[in-house]
């Protein structure tokens, strides 16, 4: 029997990447403050 196929759509982010991203608001900004390049 073939092994099941796993489709990895998004590997996600490591804590290092989140730590290096400039954002100051988690799900929604006051004054749209999240960084467009965060």
């Amino acid at each position: 029997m073939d092994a099941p196929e796993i489709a990895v759509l998004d590997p996600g982010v490591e804590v290092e990447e989140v730590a290096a991203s400039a954002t100051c608001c988690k799900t929604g900004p006051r004054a749209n403050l999240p960084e467009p390049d965060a």
Partner: protein
Amino acid sequence: MPLSPYLVAFPHPDGSDRTAVFGTRKGSLCLVPTSAYEALRRGEDPEPLGPALEPLGVLVPDPEAERARVLGYLEELNRLSPLVMLAVILGMDCNFACPYCYEGDRKGPWALGPDTARALAAFAGARLGPGKTRLRAQFYGGETLLYRARLRQVAGSLQGVAAERGASWSFGVVTNGSLLTPEVVDELRPLGLTSAQVTLDGPPDTHDGSRPYRDGRPSFGRIVENLVAVRGRLKLGLGGNYTRDTWRAFPRLFDHLEAAGLGPADFTQVRFDAAILGVGGEAVAGCAAATEPWVAEAAVALRGEILRRGYPTPRPGPSTCMIDRTDAVTVDWDGRLYKCPGLVGRPGFAVGDLWSGLRDHRESHGVEAWRHDPACRACAYLPLCFGGCRFARLEREGTLAGVDCLQPFLDATLVPLLGQNLRYRYASPEDAGVRRPG
């Protein structure tokens, strides 16, 4: 190998025999044959799936160790972060008269002066050093670009102090877009400008009612002209604030952008947020508004439209708040420091000033309140939420203490949002890396 406690799984909406599995600690997403996923849920692993699923945080060697890792996530993040982040209010004057203005009656002829600018540079410089090698500021107001001379001075000072400390430097502006011309961008780029966040509250018929000039003139046309003129010179983020009455009109905004020649490649991020009048009569947005019953419907529908049109928008995933980040702070024009833009100007919520430094805010701001809540510690959403929005808690409950539980909102929205990713982001096989275990 067992499943992680931090998973959200749901049948693929295409009806195929696959289960979509979202790992909340990493924001990973994969498709697993449903029979294999059911076997994993029963504690079986007939085909060794660990090599494929462990890197995604879906299978973990030890669920208790995984819990400990998530409970220590913010501590690790602060230890690893190379950033010193400043949100700086340059001044409180504005050329718009938005009826829902977030700054409310704080608007007026007040601006950051030369002494405060010097103190800001000294404050930032003192926080740079080993392990803190990137200085980033986001300027807002008031209308940021009414303060160009001041912005040049402040950005130049911060650029200088970053260079002295061997750190990188860049900044973004939050602007209504009316003054964002190529000349302004070209003047500011040598000082570190890399991005601008502009707001359009839907198509002209809704935007011009909610974001008019102070003399009542419409502003949509000027903003779009400027976006066309500056695109390619800097990263552009597009935001918009919708209400119960306006959100259904927002999709037509994209028709207007496209008629002007703007498209997905011109923006690095598009997102819309709900604006609702809060306790004090000022607007609150986004997470702060998540408990309004119509917001979940609007949030899902508008994000779907953003993706359907091909525009970039944030993915669900782990995220943090300024309150939780040790080297992130909001600086008011007078030099007082706050741990959230929403708290600026509220008596009792300053956490110091540029001259005396930051006070310990952990108790006053309910930092890591989720640690004391068994429901939070057991919640699969914890890495997406970490206690929710403290500002929302303050608006609703009158206190920053305790958690702002996002579970009902995430129950209503997360699977539909992930389903949108499946439909629009990963629609073609080449978008997905198909892996066999072993």
